[in-house]
Structures are given as structure tokens and as C-alpha cells.
């Protein structure tokens, strides 16, 4: 009988250990180091000095806002595109096109982010494939008249990579849910005279809103905290917050460690909260448009 009672606790033991040890333990670890308590390096005592240094550093706010701008743009474009693709997919009754689109979306899902960076360079460069296309069709005269799309201040390259990866992710998950929505809803809606947009708003979005919400939040969080894309494609200024954190992390000067960890704690907690706020706002928005 005791064993019976212990069953659920045994079942959740692995996840608790893993999360507790590495996420909880990690957070405690970085907080301690950010306060300047690193006994291995002979640093003792607690002070919030490193936080003050990090926050008052030049361009800190700018970096943070820049990252939020990138994440927000990415998640809004990817979610909209993803939902539109999913809805078009469900309502397009052509089997062979559906198979083709599903396969290519899956293809988009299996390419790693780091490789999409390579693709972005290949496509968006001033001598890249888009520029070549425009040049060969006579729309631009020299490669220099093609706009700078990577390593640019507006972060177009970074946004392009996240949208390229995020859209298939959202579309596939939403298709998965929308495919299960019974045709009866659509038939009833059509009989009552609703058009495609109304059907999408009133039937499909409300029934798949949970999936839209969490996939969108995942993309938002990923764009905010991913290292490779932000680091490889960012301009010199402004620098995304994760690229800034990584530059601090690889700084060989051990005096910088508390500052690195302070920025890490800020990104961990504040970043997490921003994702929460984004999710909450999106939830309200989805509820509103389905009215």
C-alpha cells in the first residue's frame, strides 16, 4: 500500500531532479556568482555592485530593447504566417499539395538554426542569391544597390532566420490541431453564411488558440535568448542582449565573471517575465479577435 502511494512521487522524481538540480541549481549558482561569491577563485562576500555596473553600462537598455524588438517582430510574423499556412492547408482539399507542403514544412523543421544562418548569408548577402536574381532581371544595376540585409541595424537577417525556422514549427503544430477540428463546424458555419475569414476567426483560431499561444511563446523566447543566430548575424551596434552576454562570457578576465553572471540573472528572470507578458497579451488578443 505504501508503494502505491509512493508511485506518483517515483514517477515525477526524474523530472524534479533534473529541473531542480540544473535549472534551480543553475539559477542559484549564477545568483551567487553574480553577487561576487566565487570561492574557487578566492572571491568572497556579497555585493550588488556587478548589477549596478551591468545596468549602467552604455547601451544596456538599447541592447535589451533591440532584442525585444527582434523577438516581437519574429513571433508576430511567424505566428501570423504559421496560422495562415495552417488554415490554407486545412481548407485546401488538394491531397498532393497537402503532402508536398507538409513535407517541406518538416524539412524546414529539421534544419538547425546555425545552418539557417548560413542560408541567410547565402540568400540575403549583397552578392547573394536574391541580389543576383534582381541583377539578372535588371532591377538593380550593381550589388551595392541591393539593401544591406545581414549584419544590419534593423536586424533583418536575424529576423529572417527566426521566421524561416519558426513558421514551419508553428504551422505544423497548428495544422495538427486544426486537422482534428470536425468538418461539421465548418459546414454549420458555411450554412449560416460565414465567409473564410469569419470561420478562421470564430472557429479555427479559438479551437487552436492554446497551441498558437505556446508555440508563439516558444519562438519569442528562442529569439530572445538564442546565442548562435544573434551572435553570428548581429551588427556592431546595437548588439542583441544574448550576443552581449556571450561576449562577456568568453572574456578571459576573471573580474568580469560577476558582471557576466549578473547579466545572466537579469536575462534569466526578466527574459522569462517578458515571455510571460507576451504570452498573456497574446492570449487576450486571441480571445478578442475570436469574438
Amino acid at each position, binding site marked *: 500500500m505504501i508503494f502505491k502511494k509512493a508511485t506518483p512521487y517515483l*514517477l515525477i522524481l526524474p*523530472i524534479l531532479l533534473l529541473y531542480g538540480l540544473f535549472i534551480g541549481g543553475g539559477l542559484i549558482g549564477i545568483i551567487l556568482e553574480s553577487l561576487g561569491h566565487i570561492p574557487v577563485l578566492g572571491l568572497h562576500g556579497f555585493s550588488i555592485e556587478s548589477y549596478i555596473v551591468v545596468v549602467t553600462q552604455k547601451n544596456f537598455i538599447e541592447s535589451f530593447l533591440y532584442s525585444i524588438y527582434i523577438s516581437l517582430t519574429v513571433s508576430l510574423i511567424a505566428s501570423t504566417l504559421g496560422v495562415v499556412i495552417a488554415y490554407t492547408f486545412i481548407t485546401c482539399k488538394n491531397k498532393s499539395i497537402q503532402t508536398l507542403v507538409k513535407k517541406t514544412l518538416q524539412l524546414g523543421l529539421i534544419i538547425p538554426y546555425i545552418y539557417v544562418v*548560413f542560408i541567410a548569408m547565402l540568400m540575403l548577402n549583397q552578392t547573394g542569391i536574391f541580389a543576383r536574381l534582381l541583377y539578372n532581371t535588371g532591377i538593380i544595376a550593381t550589388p551595392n544597390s541591393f539593401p544591406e540585409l545581414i549584419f544590419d541595424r534593423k536586424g533583418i537577417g536575424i529576423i529572417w532566420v527566426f521566421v524561416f525556422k519558426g513558421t514551419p514549427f508553428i504551422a505544423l503544430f497548428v495544422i495538427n490541431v486544426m486537422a482534428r477540428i470536425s468538418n461539421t463546424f465548418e459546414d454549420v458555419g458555411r450554412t449560416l453564411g460565414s465567409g473564410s475569414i469569419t470561420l478562421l476567426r470564430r472557429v479555427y483560431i479559438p479551437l487552436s488558440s492554446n497551441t498558437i499561444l505556446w508555440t508563439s511563446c516558444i519562438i519569442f523566447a528562442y529569439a530572445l535568448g538564442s546565442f548562435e543566430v544573434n551572435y553570428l548575424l548581429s551588427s556592431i551596434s546595437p548588439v542583441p542582449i544574448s550576443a552581449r552576454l556571450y561576449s562577456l562570457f568568453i572574456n578571459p578576465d576573471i573580474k568580469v565573471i560577476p558582471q557576466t553572471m549578473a547579466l545572466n540573472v537579469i*536575462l534569466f528572470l526578466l527574459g522569462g517575465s517578458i515571455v510571460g507578458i507576451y504570452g498573456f497579451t497574446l492570449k487576450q488578443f486571441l480571445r478578442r479577435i475570436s469574438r
Partner: protein
Amino acid sequence: MKKIFLVLIAITITLPIVFILLLSLFSYYRFPLLFPKDFTTEFWKTALLKNPMFIPSLLNSLILAICNGFLSTLVGIMTARALVRHNFKGKSFIKTIYTIPLFIPSIALFLGVHTVMIRLRLINSYIGIILAHMIISIPYAVSIFIPFFQGISLDIEDAAKVLGCRTIGLYKRIIIPLIVPGIFLSFSISFLISFTEYFSTFIIGGGRVVTLATLMYPYINNFDLGNGATLGVIFIGTNLLVFFIAEYISRKKLKTDSYLFE
């Protein structure tokens, strides 16, 4: 209209991959050429034969991804089972936190994990990397299995118990067969996450454990067209092959059309 839109989407995703394939086979690509010229097998020879890191990195990628696939699926099943079938203290807590790793900015999450790994001396080890990959795979695994367990009626389980089925028998004969599609899905997604993950592999592997994804980094950083493209084709090809095999098995066993997002 709808068909054109969908075909356009398909082309947008496929086009870069076609170019990558061409760039791995042709060496001359000056502006304003649209398609590369001068056929060569040099890039493929370099990648497959001359690069001493290639075979180890491919094996590392596969080993890590398969281990992560199995372990994350197992933890996913256990957690989902507890959440759906049992009542226990802290249930709502687990329900709120199991997805949390996906919503914390990954660089901050993994630098935290990194500090713990150093203390546990798991840096540069397979175990460390697998544990790190599990952290970001388990949320998906749990969300996959929750609906599967909700779909198993309590009556079936009770009937089995009344007929004398023990816990092990219950899992073997009733539960596992019913959640097999979920196992395939969860394994593939976890496999994919581990296979494509760069940052955590890199910092916890400390450069010692090289995978296909980390092997690509210098080529991408230097924008080495030919060699970068070739590694990309190999990467995508390996992944497609694995998924093709998984789909083949699942079609034979489950008789379902498409197991990855049915």
C-alpha cells in the same frame, strides 16, 4: 489562390536547399552568376575522407540524439502518467513548471546549467550533454503524452486489473500499445532537438565532444561556401534518412499515414 500560396511556401523553403546542393557540387560562383559552374567532387572528398573529425562527429551526433530520444521519452511517459492518473502533493506545481525550460532565454538557461555541470564534473562528457538536451526535450515529450494518457479510459485499466493484470502486465499489454504513436513522435522530436542543438552541446561539450552541428560552426562563421554547403547537405541528408527509417517502421507497425504530426 490557396494552392498558389501553399506552393510558394513550399518553394521558399526548398529553394535554399537546392542551392546548397548545387554549391556542394560546383566550385565557381562569382557574382552575378545565378547558378554555380565547374563540377567538382573536391568538397565531398574533403568532408567525407579528409576531415578526421567527420566520422566521430557524425557518430557523436547520433549517439547523443538516440540517448536523448530514449531518455526524454521515458521521463515524458512517467511525468505525463503521474499528471493524468495520480493525485499527489505538488501536482499543480509540476503542471506549471514542466514547460518552463522552453520559456527561459536559452543562453541564460544553459550558462546556469553550465555552472552546475562544472561542479558535478560533467563538463566535456556525454552524460552532461545528454542531460542538457533532456532539459529542452522533456517539455515536448510530456505535452505529447498527456493527451495519450487522457485518451486511455480508466475502465480498460480496471478491467485488466480485475482480470489479474499486474502493473508490469498492464504497461506491457495495455498502456504501451496504446501510446506507441506518441512514443514515435516523442522520440523523433527529442532526437531532432538533440541533433540540431548547437549552443548547449558546444559549451557543455567544451569543444571536446564535437557533433555535426558544432563541426559546422567554423565553416559558417567564415562563410566557406563549398565546404559549408557540403556539411549542410550531409546534415540534412542524415536527418532525412533517420526520419525516413522511423516513418517506414511506424507505417509498418502502426499502419498510420504520417507519424510526424499526423
